[in-house]
């Protein structure tokens, strides 16, 4: 994205391994960053939808409240000026006071619910993107999965039911924002692979020194000729302009950096299962910077 050339200034001497490695590392980081931005860009549309709904009814409710208040003030103003009790009663009838009272309570409760929903969306989005210190820390994988699920919920909910089958997991030493990104990728792929309405199962379990995370879908599956290429950079079966072909290859390198493994099994027509195996123990051998 910046002006950094990717291919041109490769050092001439093949012996210059450190320079090459450094450059590879830098390009890798750039790729990771741009894939993250692309993921956020795709999310933005979904998040806009998710926010516009509550904003829509809260905004409309405020305008209704405005009209209700006009009626209410007519009544309160009349208390001073009306000469008889009957006059007040009549006014009360004409503005449908009983309805107003009941509906005002609903209106405020619904609007509060809407604002709280917006607040939750923003918080999860911040959790998802902000926690991007490039450092290994003990983190709760389930919290990461749940945050990621709520961020991408809007893209998935019209395509699949998400089933969470969580085991007991210990805290895992990882860069949680990057693990979130891997999960996000797998979930997005799963949703894209489903034609009509399907099911996505997120399964976790603890096995001696590892945690295992499965993301399984009931989508159209990956054909035999493609399955060995899914982790290759720029490999995609999506039309030009729709997929970068980088999601899985970056997921692969993230998991690799964590000294873990990512595998795929798929039956065309039945579905696909991606499995991530992460070591629990502290690791800084693959640290990014």
């Amino acid at each position, binding site marked *: 994205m910046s002006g950094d050339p990717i291919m041109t200034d490769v050092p001439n001497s093949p012996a210059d391994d450190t320079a090459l490695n450094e450059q590879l590392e830098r390009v890798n980081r750039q790729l990771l960053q741009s894939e993250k931005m692309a993921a956020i860009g795709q999310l933005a549309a979904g998040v806009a*939808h998710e926010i516009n709904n509550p904003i829509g009814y809260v905004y*409309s409710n405020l305008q209704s409240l405005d009209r209700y208040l006009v009626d209410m003030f007519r009544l309160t103003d009349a208390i001073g000026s009306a000469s008889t009790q009957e006059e007040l009663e009549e006014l009360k009838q004409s503005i449908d006071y009983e309805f107003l009272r009941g509906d005002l309570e609903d209106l405020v409760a619904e609007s509060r619910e809407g604002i709280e929903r917006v607040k939750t969306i923003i918080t999860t989005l911040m959790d998802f993107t902000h926690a991007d210190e490039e450092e290994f820390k003990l983190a709760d994988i389930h919290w990461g999965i749940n945050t990621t699920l709520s961020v991408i919920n809007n893209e998935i909910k*019209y395509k699949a039911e998400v089933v969470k089958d969580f085991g007991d997991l210990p805290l895992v030493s990882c860069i949680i924002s990057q693990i979130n990104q891997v999960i996000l990728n797998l979930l997005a792929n799963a949703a894209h692979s489903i034609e009509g309405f399907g099911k996505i199962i997120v399964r976790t379990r603890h096995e001696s020194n590892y945690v295992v995370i499965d993301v399984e879908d009931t989508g159209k599956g990956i054909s035999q000729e493609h399955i060995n290429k899914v982790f290759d950079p720029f490999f995609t079966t999506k039309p030009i302009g729709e997929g970068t072909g980088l999601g899985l290859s970056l997921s692969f390198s993230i998991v690799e950096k964590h000294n873990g493994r990512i595998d795929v099994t798929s039956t065309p027509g039945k579905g696909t299962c991606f499995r991530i195996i992460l070591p629990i123990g502290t690791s800084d051998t693959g640290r990014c910077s």
Partner: protein
Amino acid sequence: MIKIQLVDDEPNILKALKRLLKAQGWEVDAYDNVDDALGGLLAHDYAVIVSDYLMPAVDGVTYLQFAKQRRPDAMRLVLTAHGDRQSVIKAINQAEVYRYLTKPWNDYEIVAAIQSAVELHQLVRENHRLLQTVATQKAMLQAREQELQRLEAEHPGITQVLRDTEGSILVGDDS
């Protein structure tokens, strides 16, 4: 009374719209799923249908296509938080929607759009009614015409009035 159908999977949207539209004196039926909304189409004669776009199972444009078949006269509007180009094109070309509105909305925009849809609906209805009147009257005229022709065939000249040069009516068997 003018009936409006609302379809949205978000109950709070339906409640906010009801608040707004009932105050205009319209009868408002709200549905939070497409199945019930389809049932509602059979039971009621709606002037205007306002549907969300993104809903589970069936999207709003597909629903409005069904609605177009069942109630071709009902005006179709989309109200969505998801205004991308693809959905707009689909809405116009496939469901022939009258308006494509976005969330969040301004109350007066919604009311004005529905108001104008209602007027158009009434115009279409009035047009149908007038067409029917024309058809019945035409049928009546045709029957009379046929009767005259039958009489003329039986008694040639009976449908003609004969006058002399000064304008007087001549009555007689031979002219």
